[in-house]
């Protein structure tokens, strides 16, 4: 209806297909859940599950033998585990960003992807969350990181950024979950009322909490949702800032830098959106959601990739400049060592993937060219992982005392743990797609022309 048209006066591709009717929303989105399981889904889930098994094997061996099975050593006492942690957390940022910040900014194009990206956030945070525990030398004492009244009368040490991490990540996980669930309540109600068998209706009904869609409900609901968005916005910024403090609080050259918080947050959004693109393109294709996830979305996401990519590039630039400007020989050596040292290839990959790749998005043709977009998003995902590798490993392997320098490389078990979390992530994603409406029907209804029932 006209109200909608006014939303974007410029001639941009619409945020939702022209000919989508009100009832299509139910039919096509709820349909995905109610339809019988497809062979494609089974195969996809099966493959993901195999990697989950690999993950389980790696973790079991890890607990049995100790983290010595990884490549970590002294001086490089942090390796894949922390790299993966930071990378996954970063990916976990796009979801809340899209749901919360874009909501506050009235970017209505977020509507058709927010549910999906929130789910992605949750699963990414879940994958990230395992690493702080896995990487402990004595994981069975992980609970010592929580302030509980122990009979030893000894407590955690709150000056440590790792403690901040514990709270930041757990808070982020919890709030994202709440946010996601609140958003789901009306759709659960829809599913409850669409469901055929009584069993299904009961199941959905439990989650729907008896949602009736009354005006009162909607009023309070929108208020709560808005407040949650308002809370999630500073949260999402704070979380990766705090993760970055793990490094910038340390004195290691290449860590000890004030630019880290903004630069990490940008990096997080960067990798997060890259992951969204990577996932949404195939799903959009297989589940024929072109009408709901339109070229407009992809175009916008490509732009965000470009912007955040530029910010990240600026981060690299400043690091280098400050290293030279500070006159600190350790900082200078760190930069030179990154570029020309034994790990020069890491630096090269980072620059290519994170700085050069997004530049192609200056061109609109590239932004809307799906294969290019997909390839670029993959490159950025890799690039951001390698960037964290650069920050963690390349900074540590040559710090202050040459006599203690060393080299690092991941082992078979490092890699299997990383791949394992991919499996975990995808498996959860498959289950989500299959079991829960992956787009917010309640919100989509606001975007389509309202119906007019025939009188009988």
């Amino acid at each position, binding site marked *: 209806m006209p109200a909608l048209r006014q939303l974007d006066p410029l001639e941009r591709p619409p945020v939702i297909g022209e000919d989508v009717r009100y009832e299509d929303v139910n039919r096509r989105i709820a349909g995905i859940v109610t339809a019988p399981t497809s062979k494609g889904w089974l195969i996809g889930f099966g493959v993901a599950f195999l990697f989950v098994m690999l993950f389980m094997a790696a973790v079991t061996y890890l607990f049995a033998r100790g983290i010595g099975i990884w490549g970590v050593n002294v001086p490089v006492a942090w390796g894949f585990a922390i790299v993966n942690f930071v990378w996954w957390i970063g990916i976990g940022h796009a979801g809340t960003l899209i749901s919360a910040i874009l909501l506050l900014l009235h970017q209505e194009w977020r509507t058709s992807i927010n549910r999906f990206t929130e789910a992605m956030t949750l699963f990414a945070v879940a994958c990230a969350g395992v690493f702080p525990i896995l990487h402990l030398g004595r994981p069975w004492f992980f609970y010592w990181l929580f302030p509980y*009244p*122990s*009979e*030893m*009368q*000894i407590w955690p040490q709150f000056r440590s950024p790792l403690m901040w991490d514990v709270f930041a990540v757990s808070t982020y996980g919890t709030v994202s979950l709440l946010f996601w669930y609140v958003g789901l309540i009306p759709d659960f109600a829809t599913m*409850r009322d669409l469901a055929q068998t*009584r069993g299904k*209706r*009961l199941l959905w*009904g439990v989650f729907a*909490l*008896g949602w009736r869609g009354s005006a009162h409900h909607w009023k309070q609901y929108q208020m709560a949702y808005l407040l949650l968005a308002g809370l999630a916005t500073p949260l999402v910024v704070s979380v990766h800032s705090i993760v970055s403090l793990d490094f910038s609080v340390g004195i290691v050259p290449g860590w000890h830098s004030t630019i880290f918080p903004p630069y990490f947050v940008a990096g997080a959004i960067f990798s997060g959106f890259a992951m969204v693109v990577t996932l949404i393109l195939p799903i959009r294709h297989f589940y024929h959601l072109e009408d709901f996830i339109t070229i407009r979305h992809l175009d916008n996401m490509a732009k965000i990739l470009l912007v955040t990519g530029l910010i990240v590039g600026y981060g690299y630039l400043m690091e280098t400049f400050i290293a030279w400007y500070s006159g600190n020989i350790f900082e200078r050596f760190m930069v030179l060592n990154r570029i020309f040292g034994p790990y020069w290839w890491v630096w090269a990959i980072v620059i290519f993937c994170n700085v050069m790749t997004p530049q192609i998005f200056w061109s609109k043709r590239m932004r809307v060219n799906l294969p290019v977009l997909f390839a670029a998003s993959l490159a950025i995902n890799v690039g951001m992982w390698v960037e964290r590798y650069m920050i963690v490993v390349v900074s540590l392997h040559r710090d202050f005392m040459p006599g203690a320098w060393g080299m690092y490389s991941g082992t078979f078990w490092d890699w299997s743990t990383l791949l394992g979390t991919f499996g975990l992530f995808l498996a959860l994603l498959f289950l989500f797609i299959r079991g829960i409406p992956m787009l917010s029907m309640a919100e989509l209804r606001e975007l389509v022309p309202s119906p007019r029932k025939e009188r009988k």
Partner: protein
Amino acid sequence: MSQLFHPASNALSRFLIAGALCGIAVISTLAYAYFRSDYFTHRSLTQQQPIPFSHAHHVSGLGIECQYCHTTVEVSSYAGIPNTETCMSCHSQIWTNAAYLAPLRESLRTGNRLRWTRVNDLPDYVFFNHSIHIKKGIGCESCHGRVDKMPLMSKGHSLQMGWCLDCHRDPGKFIRPREEVYSMGYVPNPSQEVVGKKLVAAYDAKPKTDCYTCHR
């Protein structure tokens, strides 16, 4: 009839939520209590011993001084467990053929050592030193409890870190005159506050709560 749930389900659902919250509280309280319970710390739990040795009898009954058997308590980290000969110095005269002393005589004859079960045991990463505690006026009783009332030996206190800290933070509450260190059931006079303050100053008892004080 298109109602999915029974009218009672409203009340039920809210009850369940409330219940879950209470459950968490209850469980954590129980855990807190458990790890401080005698059941967990083995406090006042008697162990199977080769000989049913009674401190009650030897200390309050016969009035034998602690150091008579625990000879090195003033000079070493270990208080010292009496060797077979020490026991035999009396038991070659009295109770010479008491059945339950057979293992003792056996030990002297064969030279095989007696194997007691530890009652007051600290983890290997805790380095406790008896001599300094004695020197600073901490009575046996303060850690080992009323040994003179123990027919069979058992832990007098939990010996948990928190318990140690109670004294290391404020020795005044427990310190006693050196001549009273070995006595059981010592009553401060006039009052522990007064005596404690005086003795802490007199003995220069400034225990540390540094980690290295006990862990090395």
